[in-house]
């Protein structure tokens, strides 16, 4: 498999390392309100390392690896009609912390159907599978870092954390950026959902402003009349230092 590349050039002057992650902004590994984290969180502190080529580089993807319907969850698993549910567009930009769009990067999305049921062999929730809905999509951002999906708004989903825990409606998102150090998986929520405030997974995030940054507003400007509503969701990946002074990545 030969992998063709977009004509990617790092911006000049060649930038330096990526900014350190703010781990008070992200959820901690050990967050006992989310019970599964209790046995799956390291006890030792993470070891901080300077970024080398291994961290500054990462996989790149090309349009010829994706299919034409990959970003359209209304159509990409339709067998004998459209899936049932609220037709929505989810769109936004992938930016870095400096506010620059990240071009040609892979965004992957997955979700439950309108009733909160996942198409996964381990999901046994009694709400039915939708025969015309798969629940996954992917796309590359354009030159400006813009991405968009079309899908069905997912339903809330019960899970056994507390006896009566329900996830808010959410879409899982996975993003790359040009370096492996930016690799990120997150979840987007929908404006106004009352389940957001009582969700243990949401509440693993300690900062109220950080939680708000995961809630997509209704975007009527981009809604299509008589067809599809829109939600806007920007995704921010780590930014990087602008100057090359004292940068001894290359050993000089």
């Amino acid at each position, binding site marked *: 498999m030969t992998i063709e590349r977009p004509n990617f050039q790092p911006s000049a002057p060649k930038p330096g390392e990526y900014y350190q992650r703010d781990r008070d902004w992200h959820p901690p590994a050990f967050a006992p309100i989310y019970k599964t984290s209790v046995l799956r969180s390291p006890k030792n502190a993470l070891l901080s390392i300077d970024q*080398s080529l291994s961290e500054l580089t990462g996989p790149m993807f090309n349009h010829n690896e994706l299919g034409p319907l990959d970003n359209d969850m209304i159509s990409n698993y339709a067998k004998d009609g459209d899936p049932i549910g609220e037709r929505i567009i989810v769109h936004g930009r992938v930016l870095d912390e400096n506010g620059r769009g990240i071009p040609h990067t892979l965004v992957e999305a997955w979700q439950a159907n309108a009733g909160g049921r996942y198409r996964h062999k381990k999901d046994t929730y009694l709400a039915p599978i939708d025969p015309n809905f798969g629940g996954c999509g992917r796309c590359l951002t354009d030159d400006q870092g813009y991405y968009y999906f079309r899908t069905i708004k997912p339903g809330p989903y019960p899970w056994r954390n507390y006896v009566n825990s329900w996830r808010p409606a959410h879409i899982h998102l996975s993003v790359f950026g040009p370096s492996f150090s930016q690799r990120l998986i997150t979840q987007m929520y929908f404006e106004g959902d009352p389940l957001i405030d009582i969700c243990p997974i949401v509440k693993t995030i300690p900062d109220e402003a950080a939680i708000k940054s995961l809630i997509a507003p209704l975007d009527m400007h981009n809604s299509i009349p008589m067809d599809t509503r829109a939600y806007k969701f920007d995704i921010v990946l780590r930014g990087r230092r602008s100057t090359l002074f004292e940068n001894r990545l290359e050993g000089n």
Partner: protein
Amino acid sequence: MVQKLDFIKETPSQTAGPYVHIGLAPAYAGFDIFENNFTNEIAGPNTRGERITIMGRVFDGSDAVVKDVLLESWQANTDGKYNHPEDFQTKDVDDDFRGWGRICSDFETGEFTLKTIKPGKVPGRNGSTQAPHISLWIVARGINIGLHTRLYFADETVANGTDPVLNGIELAERRKTLIAERSEQDGEVIYTFDIRLQGDGETVFFDI
């Protein structure tokens, strides 16, 4: 007033959840949707280098095998060159090798496998040389933010001895948690690499 610093905050991480396969590896979720899937067999027919198989399991803090984990790997080619425009070395990239793999553990056994080539040495900072290694990123239900670690090779004793990252691990005993053991089965080179998320023998994880 001083000027405003215009930075925006990184989007906070959330767990990938138990159904991460739907989005990242639909075949594991139990259905077929995309024409082209990303997999754990990443060396093409023309990829240069020694074919190797990485095998391992991930354990939680009660020593139970984690059976719904997803890993990604990132590595250089056999010459130690990353397939990325910012790799400043004059070495050739391998058009048949991106260097990235997506790996799912088996739902029954928890075993994960990566079929790849053994990477070469890559430059470290300040003129140092890093021992051959594969960067790994681990997500799963119960993991709130992806865990970064590295896999090194037990048969690279000399290079491992001077690797700047391994040597940066203060407790020498913990360095062993990053070394994969080599064996051969039916002519195939296998490296075994178990990951312990918590407790005795806990794997070293990095903030990169």
